[in-house]
C-alpha cells in the first residue's frame, strides 16, 4: 500500500536561468502504474530522482502515504529504482547484485537466499546467478536490474527509461514482461520514458511533461483522443497529428472551417463551444487515421474533402502512409490508409476527412478550443 503525492514540485539548478522542473503536481494511487512521458530534457527524470531522494528539492513536497519525505534520505524511503543503464555492480555476481540491498538491511542470510532465488526463478535468472554482469546479454542485465528492485519488496518502484538500451525486438518482449510483473506484484510504480508506445501500452495513467511542466494527465487513450494542446497532439501518435492553418467562420449559424480554400463543416454539437472563435484563425488538427482515401460507408454526413497532391507513398506492409500537400496552400499532411492502395506519388486526390474527429487549437495559446468527441 503506497500513495505518492507530488505537490508543486520545483527544481532549479544553481546558475540556470529557467527551472528544470516547475510546479509539478500529481498523485499516484495505490497499485497504480503511472508513466511520466516527455521529450529528452523535459524534466521527467529529475522529478523521478526527487521522488527517489537522489536530487534535492528546491520547493514543493513529495509525500508517500501522506507523509512528506523531502528530508528523508533515499535509503529510508523504501523505494527501489531501475536505472536506464541498469547500474549493475560489475564486480559482483548476479546473486550478489540481487542480495546487495538486502545485506545492508541486515536481512538474515537464509531469507536473502530465499528471496534471491525466488526472484531469479520468476525472472528466468536461476541459471545465471554465478555470472557477472559483463557475461550477460542486454535483456538479462535488464532482468537483473528488475530483480534487484523486486527482492527488496519496496513500497514504490521507480523506473528510469529501463528499456531504452534494448534493441527493438527485445524491447517489445521485455515490455510485456514488465507489464506482467507489475500486474502480479501490484506495487505502486512510476515509469519515466520518452517512448509513447511504452506510455500507451504500460501506463494506467500517463502524465505528459514539456519544458519542466506537466502538460496533460489522464488515461492513455483519453489523452490520445483529446490532446490538451498542440504539443501533446504532435508528441502522441506516430505519425503525429496533422496540424493545419485554418479560419473559423459561420455559415447559416453553423461552424465551418476554411482550410486551404475548402470549407469543412463541423458537427453541430461543437457549435456552442466555438462562439467566441468565429472569425478568427485556428489550428486544425486531424490524426492520420482520420483521413481516408475512400470515405467509410455509413458516415457520409460527417465527411469533408480536401484536394491534395501526393508527395510520397510509404508502404509499411500492414498499412500505407500517404504524404500529401494541400493544393491551395502547400501545407503537408500525412494519412494512414490500408495496404491495398493504387495511389502513386504525384497523383491528385480528394482526401476524405472525418469531421467528427477534427481538433481545433487556439493559435496564440496552442491549447485545445474544443475536443473531439470520444468515439468509443
Amino acid at each position, binding site marked *: 500500500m503506497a500513495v505518492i503525492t507530488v505537490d508543486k514540485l520545483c527544481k532549479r539548478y544553481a546558475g540556470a536561468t529557467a527551472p528544470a522542473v516547475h510546479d509539478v503536481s500529481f498523485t499516484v494511487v495505490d497499485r497504480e502504474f503511472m508513466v511520466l512521458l516527455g521529450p529528452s530534457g523535459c524534466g521527467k527524470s529529475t522529478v523521478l*530522482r526527487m521522488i*527517489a*531522494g*537522489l536530487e534535492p528539492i528546491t520547493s514543493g513536497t513529495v509525500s508517500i502515504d501522506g507523509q512528506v519525505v523531502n528530508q528523508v534520505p*533515499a*535509503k529510508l524511503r523504501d*523505494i*527501489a*529504482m531501475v*536505472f*536506464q*543503464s*541498469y*547500474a549493475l*555492480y*560489475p*564486480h559482483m555476481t548476479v546473486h550478489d547484485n540481487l542480495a*546487495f*540491498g538486502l545485506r*545492508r*538491511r541486515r536481512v538474515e542470510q537464509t531469507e536473502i537466499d530465499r528471496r534471491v532465488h525466488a526472484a531469479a526463478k520468476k525472472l528466468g535468472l536461476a541459471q545465471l546467478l554465478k555470472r557477472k554482469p*559483463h557475461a550477460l546479454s542486454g535483456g538479462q542485465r535488464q532482468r537483473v536490474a528488475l530483480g*534487484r528492485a523486486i527482492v*527488496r519488496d519496496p513500497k514504490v518502484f521507480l523506473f528510469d527509461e529501463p528499456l531504452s538500451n534494448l534493441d527493438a525486438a527485445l524491447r517489445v518482449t521485455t515490455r510485456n514482461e514488465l507489464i506482467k510483473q507489475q500486474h502480479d506484484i501490484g506495487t505502486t510504480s512510476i515509469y519515466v520514458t520518452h517512448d509513447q508506445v511504452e506510455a500507451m501500452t504500460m501506463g494506467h495513467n500517463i502524465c505528459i511533461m514539456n519544458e519542466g511542466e506537466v502538460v496533460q494527465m489522464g488515461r492513455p487513450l483519453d489523452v490520445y483522443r483529446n490532446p490538451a494542446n498542440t504539443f501533446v497532439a504532435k508528441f502522441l501518435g506516430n505519425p503525429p497529428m496533422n496540424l493545419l492553418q485554418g479560419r473559423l467562420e459561420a455559415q447559416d449559424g453553423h461552424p465551418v472551417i476554411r482550410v486551404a480554400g475548402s470549407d469543412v463543416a463541423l458537427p453541430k454539437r461543437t457549435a456552442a463551444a466555438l462562439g467566441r472563435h468565429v472569425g478568427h484563425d485556428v489550428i486544425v488538427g486531424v490524426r492520420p487515421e482520420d483521413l481516408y482515401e475512400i470515405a467509410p460507408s455509413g458516415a457520409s454526413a460527417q465527411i469533408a474533402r480536401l484536394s491534395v497532391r501526393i508527395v510520397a507513398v510509404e508502404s509499411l506492409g500492414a498499412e500505407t502512409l500517404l504524404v500529401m500537400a494541400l493544393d491551395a496552400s502547400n501545407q503537408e499532411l500525412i494519412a494512414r490508409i490500408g495496404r491495398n492502395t493504387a495511389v502513386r506519388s504525384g497523383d491528385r486526390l480528394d482526401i476524405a476527412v472525418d469531421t467528427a474527429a477534427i481538433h481545433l487549437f487556439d493559435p496564440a495559446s496552442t491549447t485545445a478550443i474544443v475536443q473531439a468527441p470520444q468515439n468509443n
Partner: protein
Amino acid sequence: MNAQLQLWLGQLRRLPLVVFVILYTAVTGGPLLWVAMMSLRTTAEIFKNPYGFPSPAHWEKFADAWTKSNYSTYFWNSTIVVVIAVVLVTVIGAMAAHCLARYNFRGNRVVRFLILSGLVLPPQLLILALFQILLDLNLYNTLPGLVLVYVATHIAMTVYILEGFFAQIPQDLFDAARMDGYSDFEIFWRVTMPIGAPAIFTTVTLNFIILWNEFLFAVILLTDDDKRTLPLGIMHFTGSHQLDVGMAATGLMIAIVPIVAIYALFSETMIKGMTAGAVR
C-alpha cells in the same frame, strides 16, 4: 613463388622493428646482465677484468651481503617505509580522488588545482623546507618522518591517476548503492574501490617502484647507518670511504628482486588500468 615473395617482403617490412627491439633490449638488458655478472664476482676480479664472466661464481656473496654488509637492515628499512607509505598514499589518495570525482562541493576546483600542482613541483625545491619541518617535529632521521614525506610527495600523482579513472564510473552505480541503503563511506569501500581496482593496482605498482628506488629525500633526511634504505646502503659501498663495487652489485641484485616480483604480478593489471576505462 609469388606467395613466398610476399612472405619474404612482409618479413622485410618488419626488419626495422626487429632491429629496434634488439637494440633496445641490448641497451636496457645489457647493463642489467653486466651487474648480475658482477654480483657473483669479487671486487678484485672485477678490477682485473671488468667484463669477465663469473668463473668461479661467488654465490656466497649474497649470504655475506645479507649477514655481514648490513643489507638485511637496509632491506627491512626499505620494506617498512615503502609498504606503509604505499598503503597510506593509496588509501588517502583514493579517498581524495573519490571526493573530487564524485562530489560537486564548493571549492572543488581549487582543491583539485592545489593537489595536482604538486605534480609539477621539482623535489629539490622541497628539500630545505622538509628538512626544517622534520627537524621541528623531531622526525628528522626517523623512518616515520621519511614515510610522511613519501606520502606527501606522491599524493598528487596518485590522485591524478585515480580521479581520472573514478570519474568514468557511471553515477547510476552510486545512486543505486544509495537506494540500496549504503552510506557515502560504504559506497567508497564497496563500489568505488572494487571497481577502481585496475587503477589502484597501477598506482600501487608505480608508487612502489618509485619509492623503492627513491634516493634524494632518503639521503638528506636519514643519517644513521641502521636507518638507511636500500639505495643509500648500496651507495655506502661506492662512497668516499670505501669502494667495493662487487658488494654494491650484489646489493643491487637484492634490491631489484621486489621490483621484478611486483612488476611480474601486476604488470598486466597495471597496463589495463592505464589504458582501459571503467567497466560499465
